[in-house]
């Protein structure tokens, strides 16, 4: 802030012969003395009424945009009132120049909303058409994935296996720690919850059954998939969306390299192979978490827990979990790649693509898990 004291802007309207003079004074510095409101200007216009209004700036001290904005508003109001002509020959030439620049082009109407509201029916219709288009696109993508995936395994695509290996390393080995933390804690939490309930009627040993079935059948697959949706699905969407903005996808297309083969397929293959492995790893850690809590909080021997666990968990549970984890892997990779490829080209679009990939991934995982639950229930397995 400057230490020089500034005088607040002020003005007097006086009559000089047939014309009115608006005599401005004070310092017109936006940051220090503020910007005049439209009401002030309207007051002046009202007071003048009609005729020529000469603007006299002789007593204006320092000025910046505040003065220009004031004059612009004055001109605008005078134009609307039609009966006032503003004569700004006495305005500082620099301000006049800025005023001339600002008045070229058509002024946007103030205060009006840019878009009128659409009727509800058309909003619903648009949403339905959008959803229909999205379903068609996703279905086509799933179909393409299956066809191109088979072709890739047969070695007939442009997919580079070194990319797949690299992606596997990033998605698989990179996620070991975070998958361990989540699954271990979930196993432990299940054991705690079970311990409190089962201890009441002296059936503490069944904690092993609870942890075993819940972890192997549900939690390991779901938790690992959610971790991967947040970690890898979002990264895929952001990476591909950034490539879009950088014209890298266009460059691929002009070389005749299908973005699907080159970008989408390796990611799907990587996650579909890594997810079952991470699931098995998540099972091991989850059971370990349950075991530690079970043995520590209940008076169970380690061997009793393990025997009960082996009885409770059959191969079937693992098979269900593995099938789920493969489906979840495909889902997370597809959501990430699809939303990345569909993204626009700005920085905000990259963020939006990443967010929606994570959200779509997590919702998709839970919805798919519900479908699995209904199917296994119907089949009685």
């Amino acid at each position, binding site marked *: 802030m400057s230490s020089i004291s500034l005088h607040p802007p002020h003005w007097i309207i006086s009559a000089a012969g047939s014309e009115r003079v608006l005599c401005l004074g004070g310092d017109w510095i936006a940051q220090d003395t503020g910007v005049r409101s439209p009401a002030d200007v309207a007051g002046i216009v009202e007071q003048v009424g009609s005729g020529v209004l000469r603007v006299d700036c002789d007593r204006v001290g320092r000025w910046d945009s505040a003065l220009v904005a004031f004059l612009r508003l004055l001109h605008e109001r005078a134009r609307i009132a039609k009966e006032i002509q503003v004569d700004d020959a006495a305005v500082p030439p620099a301000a006049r120049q800025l005023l001339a620049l600002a008045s070229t082009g058509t002024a946007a109407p103030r205060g009006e909303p840019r878009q009128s509201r659409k009727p509800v029916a058309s909003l619903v219709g648009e949403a339905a058409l959008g959803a229909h288009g999205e379903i068609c696109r996703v279905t086509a993508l799933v179909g393409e994935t299956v066809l191109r995936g088979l072709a890739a395994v047969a070695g007939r695509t442009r997919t580079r296996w070194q990319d797949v290996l690299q992606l596997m390393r990033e998605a698989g080995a990179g996620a070991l720690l975070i998958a361990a933390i989540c699954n271990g804690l979930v196993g432990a939490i299940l054991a705690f919850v079970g311990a409190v309930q089962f201890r009441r009627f002296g059936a503490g040993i069944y904690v092993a059954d609870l942890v075993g079935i819940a972890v192997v059948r549900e939690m390991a697959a779901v938790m690992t998939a959610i971790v991967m949706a947040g970690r890898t699905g979002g990264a895929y969407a952001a990476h591909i969306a*950034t490539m879009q903005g*950088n*014209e890298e996808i*266009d*460059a691929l*297309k002009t070389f*005749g*390299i299908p973005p699907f083969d080159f970008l989408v397929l390796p990611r799907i293959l990587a996650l579909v192979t890594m997810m079952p492995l991470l699931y098995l790893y998540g099972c091991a850690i989850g059971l370990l978490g349950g075991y530690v809590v079970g043995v520590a909080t209940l008076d169970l021997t380690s061997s009793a827990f393990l025997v009960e666990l082996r009885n409770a968990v059959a191969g079937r549970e693992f098979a269900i979990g593995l099938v789920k984890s493969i489906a979840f892997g495909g889902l997370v990779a597809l959501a990430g790649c699809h939303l990345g490829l569909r993204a626009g080209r700005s920085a905000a679009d990259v963020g939006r693509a990443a967010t929606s990939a994570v959200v779509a991934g997590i919702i998709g995982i839970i919805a798919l898990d519900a479908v699995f639950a209904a199917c296994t229930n119907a089949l009685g397995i």
Partner: protein
Amino acid sequence: MVDLDNSSFRLEATNLTLAFGSNLIQRDVSFAVRPRSIFAVMGGSGCGKSTLLKAMIGLLRPVSGTLVVDGEDYWSTSEERRTEIGRRFGVLFQSGALWSSMTVSENVALPLRLFTRLDDAAICELVELKLALVGLAGSGHKMPSELSGGMRKRAGLARALALDPEILFFDEPSAGLDPISSNRLDELILELSGGLGATVVIVTHELPSLFAICDDGVFLDAEAKSAIAHGSPRQLRDSCGDPTVRAFMERGRATAAREGGGRVH
């Protein structure tokens, strides 16, 4: 008017109309590119030059009109055939568009690995050659993010040259470069196209580049939404009757003079 004799043109557009959805970009654009010429697509910012380029390299299907490449209708053939035709193209995008997860060498090598049967040693040799041609010998191990804007463009050019293209497309090659780098890039384009015998289509609004290297061209106008002049930039500057084209070619001097005269001081 353009002389329309099918056999002697590399690329021939007839009444191309381009649009994004309902947003019309250009209407009824016709032009023809002679073999080994350096053809300019000129026009002010936002007139649809880059959109026209997208239609020529297969990224945007025109709403109507035909684009004939070496006697073949580019947009009415199958997608596979279009890809094959497109493999004769080399494209330098505005930002270079290097694949950011690969080194410069890998960028240049990828098309060779995917579309030729060459072994690693041969590919390596070719990559070194292409990088040397654009003045980037020894920078192959760098990642695109480590390069300056000018180097990125030259690396993009090396990649565009990877498959020895017959037609080279440049999207605003001098955008974002200082005058010296942009001049050097112009010279490089001239030398390379001469050496390779390639035809060049260049989208630009940089007057120095236009006059220095282009020998034919088409002028697109944003207001008319169509091509309003054909000919080399020099020819258009010296003898075009259209005031918009003349103003552009004389760097807006004519309009500035007109506006200046009318302004009250």
